[in-house]
């Protein structure tokens, strides 16, 4: 019961956790508080090596980077700052059939050279943090499927990248970033990977859900490069409060404004997300975007792979004031892109 493999005080580093099989991790109400939401591997300090593991069927998570402010418990030390430390390695792991998330980074992961010192932006994009440069955290080659919420989620992160993840059959989303923080553009990214909405080997719960492939953060400074999307072609009949009618709703390859529906999310959008090199399977991805509340994100398409309207074009939600000559807002466009597409002159 509780976490299966864990590093308790957030002081330990350089452990190698490799090629393990972890199955059926269960919650406990009587151990650590976090054992109520257990992870098969609970990682309180990121500078450890997590490689080649299979973790399946946890009540909550497979891999939880529960990064702490400082080392805690008997190891308490103000000079150890795990949530701003570099990651050791996270590569070639498998996560599936968990109650919530395959990989969860929560709350913070903003790695930098001097973890206990702040990062101050110099104003120069060429040399943005000269006194305390960020250290890239590359999470690579995760395979994550059939999770009750997401394949992978990052709550509040700096230079963190999900590289070549393969996700399928997740109820809420393949991948999601909630907040990018303390970082300029070009660091926090999803790179490559394959996102599958639904395979032929799924269960009823997914048929009654409307997942996204990737849900983008409610902050600036995030991009998606070279991700491929397949199998988002089903629908669910829902009650539409606006029209007071039953209507068909559809899953979407891209979603927006992570957790903006939540009352505690004070930030409500108008953010820009950069995309390039995306691939949407023509036969099985009829809807490339389903916007989330408050319908205000802007996708800046650097090469037209999302909009099919050429480089430096835009996709955003359909508002009346956007029905302009530079934008297309016909029925086919709105059906395919969930909103309007605007040309490069904007």
């Amino acid at each position: 019961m509780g976490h299966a493999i864990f590093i308790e005080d957030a002081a330990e580093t350089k452990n190698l956790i490799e090629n393990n099989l972890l199955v059926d991790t269960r919650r406990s109400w009587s151990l650590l508080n976090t054992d109520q939401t257990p992870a098969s591997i609970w990682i309180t300090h990121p500078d450890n090596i997590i490689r080649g593991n299979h973790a399946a069927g946890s009540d909550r998570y497979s891999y939880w980077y529960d990064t702490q402010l400082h080392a805690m418990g008997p190891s308490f030390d103000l000079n150890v700052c795990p949530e701003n430390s570099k990651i050791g390695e996270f590569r070639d792991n498998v996560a599936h059939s968990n109650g919530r998330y395959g990989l969860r980074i929560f709350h913070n992961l903003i790695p930098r050279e001097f973890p206990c010192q702040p990062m101050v932006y110099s104003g120069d994009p060429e040399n943005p943090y000269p006194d305390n440069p960020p250290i890239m955290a590359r999470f690579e080659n995760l395979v994550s499927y059939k999770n009750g919420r997401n394949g992978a989620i990052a709550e509040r992160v700096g230079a963190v990248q999900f590289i070549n993840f393969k996700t399928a059959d997740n109820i809420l989303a393949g991948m999601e970033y909630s907040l990018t923080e303390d970082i300029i553009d070009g660091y926090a990214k999803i790179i490559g990977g394959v996102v599958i909405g639904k395979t032929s080997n799924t269960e009823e719960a997914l048929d009654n859900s409307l997942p996204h492939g990737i849900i983008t953060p409610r902050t600036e400074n995030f991009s998606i490069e070279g991700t491929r999307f397949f199998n988002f072609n089903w629908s669910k009949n829902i009650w539409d409060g606006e029209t007071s009618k039953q209507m068909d709703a559809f899953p979407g390859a891209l979603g927006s404004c992570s957790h903006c529906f939540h009352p505690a999310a004070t930030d409500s959008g108008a953010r820009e997300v950069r995309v390039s090199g995306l691939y949407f399977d023509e036969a099985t991805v009829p809807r490339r975007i389903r916007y989330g509340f408050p319908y205000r994100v802007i996708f800046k398409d650097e090469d037209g792979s999302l909009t099919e309207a050429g480089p430096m074009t835009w996709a955003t939600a359909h508002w009346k004031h956007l029905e302009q000559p530079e934008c297309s807002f016909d029925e086919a466009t709105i059906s395919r892109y969930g909103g309007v597409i605007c040309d490069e002159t904007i």
Partner: protein
Amino acid sequence: MRAEVGLLTRNVKYQGDPETSADNQYGAHIMIHSPGDESCVGRIENVEFYNVGQAFKLGRYPIHFHMIGTVHQSYVRNNAIW
């Protein structure tokens, strides 16, 4: 696609009391402790652990390296805990 297959048995078996451990959720455990960096070597390999760990008790884990410091010579490898 959901299946995971693992071998749970080993020739060497470390187990709690077969009559009471499961009922009481009170099993055997291994705790390795000595004070200071490189002060001990713990190597546990190819062992089956059964009826191990104690519910509701922190620190009574099936295998536990407790507050030692660096242990570069130590490993826990190819065991089964179930």
